[in-house]
């Protein structure tokens, strides 16, 4: 019963989309020493071509024949029961467009960013490999292929976080990210097992046609799948790796840890919409986790000073919104937020990359200030993105975030609606805080770090290592940021109003979804959201942006650093908790096994056997006196015993 989701049996252009990045990776890897910087061109070209191929496939992805959406390309059977294939439908089209489109811009930017790095070819090999893996994830037409992609993006992320493998912090961050993601992989794996057990097939078509065969395991299936989604998308309580992942080069943070890979969880839930629509418990679970993550991430964003870490927690928070959206079955709203977020967050990361480059690898915003003049492109692009992420009316984030928050209300989760609105205010606060502290006032980098509250040893480990000060043509980095900035402003317009292009695009993808109808409450939601934005932005302005605040900025920042609550500085003690609950016990158990049980218990038992056989031997030895007459006596007694025995036996007869 192979039930396909796409209409056509074959659409080879998907193969081109899928394999071009792999080809780029192989070329960059195999000819890296010869290509050097040209590897960047090759890699960017591969992704650019894949983007064009994706655009060319638009029509095929949108075709609809009796509920069978999109184009399908079989890849052959991997194992009996595991048939692989590629599927391009509206959902995967959106992801593929972002992966290749934003990916292309980030590739171009990376040529400039990594210009002086000796391992630039290796960098592009990894980056192209990541795009290939991510496309595997979103283009697969079955759960097994999705899991393969899921694992491979984790690997690419591992390589890229640990790209500067001589930095111990980067190595540790890479390992942490990989292990936590394996927890997620295992969750998905188990979800897949449940599906395979109950349905006997892993293709999306078969599974979604037989959702009720999963009863009573439906909730458990969703739960296990969501463990994977939570690990990959940095949801509570598996979020701790994301901030550490900022050890990777900034373009990596933009592409993998903001725009694409971390949204894989959103993709998974949206893809499995038929499962979630059938299980109310799963909706509540995922909505709750997403909502709490949005809030928790935003609060942590308030207490960070490292520009990339602020953005990392912001990413965590925004993905929380997306997860909340798809969790409460407002699928197209969650996906919409993914779409706009990819632009403004990539823009923010790349803009901060420009600043980091300009300041020779300084990442602490307390040591920035006044960047408005030194990096104007970053100032304008990031300004637009800050407005977008904070929900300034008619910027892209405004539309998608409203959709998510209103979606929660519409599906009956009032408290999520309230928390979502509160989080929107906090978002505006911490984003404007970042903006004002970085761009306004005067440059503080020449001050001694202690005077703005930066501990010395922390400061030294946070820098990205670059080679010489030789710089690439500045447009290589400026142009992608500018383009992303434009999209950060305008990408939301396609979501405006009823019957918007966005709504029509997804009209057939999520048949279980009831689309929000315009009503007073939606208008009210928007008004409250804008009010929250204003409040947050105003607080940030008075604290960091106003002329009085800017006048004594260093002292202010120092005192504020000292006043931050310990629970926020220590990230709610999550790392310590995980260490206490999992890492330390595992190591203790391992040491107990190899130092106590192996040598003492098991080998001890074996040794008892040895001792016992030795005792028997010692007893036997003691009989061997070597005295001839003693032996003779024993022989005589033995013979006598025989004689007596037979004599008695004869007498008894």
């Amino acid at each position, binding site marked *: 019963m192979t039930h396909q989701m796409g209409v056509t049996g074959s659409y080879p252009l998907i193969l081109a989309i899928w394999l071009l990045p792999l080809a780029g990776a192989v070329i960059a890897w195999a000819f890296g020493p010869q290509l050097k910087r040209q590897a960047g061109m090759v890699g960017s070209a591969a992704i650019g071509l894949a983007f064009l191929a994706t655009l060319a496939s638009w029509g095929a992805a949108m075709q609809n024949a009796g509920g069978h959406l999109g184009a399908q390309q079989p890849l052959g059977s991997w194992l009996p029961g595991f048939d692989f294939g590629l599927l391009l439908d509206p959902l995967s089209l959106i992801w593929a467009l972002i992966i290749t489109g934003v990916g292309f811009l980030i590739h171009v930017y990376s040529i400039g960013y990594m210009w002086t790095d000796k391992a630039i070819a290796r960098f592009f090999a990894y980056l192209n490999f990541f795009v290939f893996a991510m496309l595997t994830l979103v283009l697969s037409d079955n759960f097994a292929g999705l899991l393969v992609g899921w694992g491979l993006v984790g690997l690419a992320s591992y390589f890229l976080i640990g790209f500067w493998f001589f930095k111990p912090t980067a190595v540790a961050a890479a390992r942490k990210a990989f292990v936590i993601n394996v927890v997620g992989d295992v969750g998905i794996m188990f979800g897949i097992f449940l599906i395979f057990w109950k349905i006997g097939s892993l293709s999306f078509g078969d599974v979604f046609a037989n959702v009720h065969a999963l009863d009573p395991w439906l909730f458990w299936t969703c739960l296990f799948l969501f463990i994977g989604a939570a690990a990959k998308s940095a949801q509570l309580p598996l979020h701790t790796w994301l901030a550490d992942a900022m050890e990777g080069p900034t373009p990596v943070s933009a592409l993998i840890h903001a725009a694409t890979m971390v949204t894989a969880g959103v993709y998974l839930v949206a893809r499995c919409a038929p499962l979630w629509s059938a299980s109310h418990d799963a909706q509540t679970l995922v909505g709750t986790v997403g909502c709490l993550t949005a809030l928790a991430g935003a609060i942590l964003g308030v207490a960070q000073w490292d520009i990339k870490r602020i953005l990392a927690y912001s990413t965590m928070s925004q993905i929380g919104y997306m997860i909340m959206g798809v969790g409460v079955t407002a699928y197209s709203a969650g996906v919409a937020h993914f779409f706009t977020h990819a632009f403004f967050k990539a823009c923010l990361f790349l803009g901060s990359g420009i600043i980091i480059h300009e300041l020779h690898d300084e990442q602490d915003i307390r040591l920035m200030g006044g960047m408005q003049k030194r990096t104007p492109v970053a100032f304008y692009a990031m300004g637009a993105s800050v407005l977008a992420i904070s929900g300034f009316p008619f910027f892209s984030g405004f539309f998608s975030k409203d959709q998510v928050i209103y979606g929660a209300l519409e599906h009956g989760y009032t408290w999520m609606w309230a928390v979502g609105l509160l989080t929107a205010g906090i978002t505006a606060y911490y984003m404007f805080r970042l903006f004002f502290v970085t761009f306004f006032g005067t440059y503080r980098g020449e001050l001694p770090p202690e005077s703005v509250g930066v501990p010395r040893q922390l400061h030294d480990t946070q820098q990205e290592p670059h080679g010489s000060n030789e710089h690439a043509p500045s447009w290589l980095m400026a142009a992608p940021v500018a383009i992303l900035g434009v999209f950060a402003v305008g990408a939301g317009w396609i979501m405006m109003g009823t019957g918007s292009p966005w709504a029509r695009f997804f009209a057939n993808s999520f048949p279980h979804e009831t689309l929000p109808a315009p009503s007073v409450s939606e208008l009210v939601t928007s008004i409250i959201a804008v009010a929250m934005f204003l409040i947050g932005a105003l607080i940030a302005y008075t604290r960091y942006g106003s002329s009085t605040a800017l006048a004594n900025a260093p002292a202010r920042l120092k005192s504020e650093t000292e006043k931050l609550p310990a629970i926020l500085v220590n990230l709610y003690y999550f790392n310590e908790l995980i260490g206490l609950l999992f890492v330390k016990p595992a190591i203790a158990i391992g040491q107990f096994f190899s130092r106590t049980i192996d040598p003492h218990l098991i080998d001890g038992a074996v040794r008892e056997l040895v001792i016992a056989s030795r005792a028997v031997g010692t007893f036997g030895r003691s009989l061997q*006196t*070597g*005295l001839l*007459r003693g032996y003779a006596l024993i022989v*005589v007694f033995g013979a006598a015993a025989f004689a007596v025995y037979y004599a008695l036996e004869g007498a008894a007869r």
Partner: protein
Amino acid sequence: MPHADLLPVAIGNYIGLSLVIFCIGIAGVLLRRNPLIMLMSIELMWNAANLLFLAFSRAWLNNAGHIFAFLVITVAAAEAAIGLAIVVIVFRNAQNVDVDEVALLKG
């Protein structure tokens, strides 16, 4: 049935004599410490057995006893030869033929 009339002396006497010789042999092996004497005592035991073989062979009119007696004589000769060789070697090495002093096989 034993052919009692073929034996000029009653069979019980042969058994008694054999028993006496055998016990003398045992006593010799157990009590004496000179290996030559012990070998001779073993010869006594062999011959006690031979005596019985022949007596019963005669009584049952069965030649198997004779054959066994020959076998025993042959084996006894071989055993004496080996035994004497061992005694000679031990004597050469230890300058002493007291069996209680020689305990090379002590475990």
